[in-house]
């Protein structure tokens, strides 16, 4: 009897692919023997667009890459430009950025948790995850006025003063979240269906994970102790006390536990940041480079002139290239800025964690079942906006 393998397309309009991802699968019965992710459906040329913009005006482009973690993208880009210009930001800005970045991590992990669970058949999880996500979005709204594309971090500081009710909002969130995490664990951690669908699925060894350049939970899930917040501290992370969550087996279940643990650690960091938030200005004082505070623009001649000059012609940067990596919820998010000495970047390269993690998808699914491909896509935690940019 003649037998042959079958080529099937998964996606791009498949709800479990989390966007427009197509995977060309080669299957032998129910077993996957080959997989080839096809991407680019959402390519919008963000890197090219940023080349034509002044440094300030490139910040809104960054939100639109990883739209589930907008503040993390803002942070990476602003830190890179600050490194290029040699700007030191006030302590309060650092602490506020850390706090908001960690809220962003929780927000991104919550969306991941909800969608991953719904992919595997736990329908109610997404409702609970989005309920808590809403609280974080409310905090965003209080800060920058926007709920999703915040653009709240600016070069040298924040867009505006932290809102007076921030403390109340964040404390309310910190008050309910630990209890809600326990609820999630009750729903999923010992749920036999969830455990069977994730344990031993999409396994990658530590050595392979390093060779595939994986980062973030994908790398730590295999037991590699690598966290940029600890290894290459930025924005004052060295002042905070937290643990790096680690997995052991490198399977989807370990990565699930690891992400929940990361949420707990983020809560710890937020608590510390909130309790120890220093007083001070919300922007660095660097005339000609950092926008002056709004109050000054209304009352001081020089500030008004600087504001006008920065908005219309930007600022000149030194010639050279810098790389700044931040630990985004998906992994190592890096910004490489090559400057030719003018007021626009010659090249902005984003090191997209989901793009590089997605490249390893064939290694995760080959030899497994077709149904486990869904689990593998979920556990990689991709955002197609960032994969395609």
């Amino acid at each position: 009897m003649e037998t042959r393998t079958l080529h099937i397309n998964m996606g791009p309009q498949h709800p479990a692919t989390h966007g427009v991802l197509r995977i060309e699968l080669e299957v032998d019965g129910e077993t996957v023997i080959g997989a080839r992710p096809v991407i680019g459906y959402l390519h919008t040329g963000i890197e090219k667009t940023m080349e034509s913009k002044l440094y300030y005006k490139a910040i809104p482009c960054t939100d639109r890459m990883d739209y589930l973690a907008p503040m993390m993208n803002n942070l990476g880009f602003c830190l890179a430009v600050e490194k290029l210009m040699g700007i030191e930001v006030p302590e309060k800005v650092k602490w506020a950025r850390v706090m908001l970045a960690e809220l962003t991590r929780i927000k991104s992990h919550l969306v991941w948790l909800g969608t991953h669970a719904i992919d595997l058949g736990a329908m109610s999880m997404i409702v609970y995850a989005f309920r808590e996500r809403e609280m974080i979005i409310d905090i965003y709204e209080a800060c920058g006025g926007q709920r999703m594309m915040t653009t709240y971090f600016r070069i040298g500081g924040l867009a505006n003063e932290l809102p007076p009710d921030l403390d109340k909002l964040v404390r309310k969130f910190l008050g309910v979240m630990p209890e809600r995490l326990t609820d999630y664990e009750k729903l999923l951690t010992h749920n036999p269906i969830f455990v069977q669908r994730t344990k031993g699925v999409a396994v990658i060894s530590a050595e392979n994970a390093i060779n595939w350049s994986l980062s973030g939970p994908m790398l730590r899930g295999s037991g590699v102790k690598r966290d940029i917040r600890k290894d290459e501290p930025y924005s004052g992370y060295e002042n905070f006390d937290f643990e790096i969550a680690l997995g052991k087996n490198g399977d989807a279940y370990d990565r699930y536990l690891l992400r929940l643990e990361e949420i707990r650690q983020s809560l710890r960091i937020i608590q510390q940041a909130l309790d120890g938030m220093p007083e001070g200005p919300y922007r660095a004082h660097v005339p000609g480079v950092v926008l002056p505070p709004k109050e000054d623009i209304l009352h001081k001649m020089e500030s008004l002139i600087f504001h006008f000059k920065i908005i219309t012609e930007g600022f000149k940067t030194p010639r050279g290239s810098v790389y700044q990596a931040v630990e985004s919820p998906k992994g190592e998010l890096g910004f490489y800025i090559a400057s030719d000495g003018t007021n626009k970047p010659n090249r902005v390269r984003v090191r997209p964690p989901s793009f590089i993690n997605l490249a390893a998808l064939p290694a995760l699914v080959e030899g497994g079942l077709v149904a486990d491909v869904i689990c593998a896509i979920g556990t990689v935690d991709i955002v197609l906006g960032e994969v395609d940019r």
Partner: protein
Amino acid sequence: MEETVRHWMQDRFAESIVREDNFRGQQSFYIHPNALLEICEALMEDPDLDFRYLADITSCDWLGHEKVMGDRFEIVYNLYSLSRKYRFFLKVMLPAEKPEIASLTPLWNGANWLEREVWDMMGIRFTGHPDLTKILTPDDLKGHPLRKDFPLTYEVPQFTWNKDNPPEVIR
């Protein structure tokens, strides 16, 4: 660690280093394209250095800046040592006429997509790459968008009012 890497590079590959650069505390070496694979392999296998993690591959187009930079295309290899917690950059300048360099896929699986992206967006050819195909741009797009001579464009979408004379790309 910075000193260690510099000494190591100067001891073993002095003739391959074109120039060194240290900007904002970030060390980079401009190297000769032919030596790339050899240097990467040595960096990876030396237990004292342990550069087993290829963080990123990217490229820059320095059209109009060739005098300062040396050549038109710059490829940047971002290497990280997980055990030593140190990052540095290997950079290669490639000529405008024939930008071509050895692929790092024999060493790192992760280089596969990164090099495909550089090929697609910047048009650098990687010799020895198993599957050097387009990755982000549509199949019918000609050219490499991140090159400086590729203009920022937009395409008029097709609607009922212009479906008979398809719109041209406005440049």
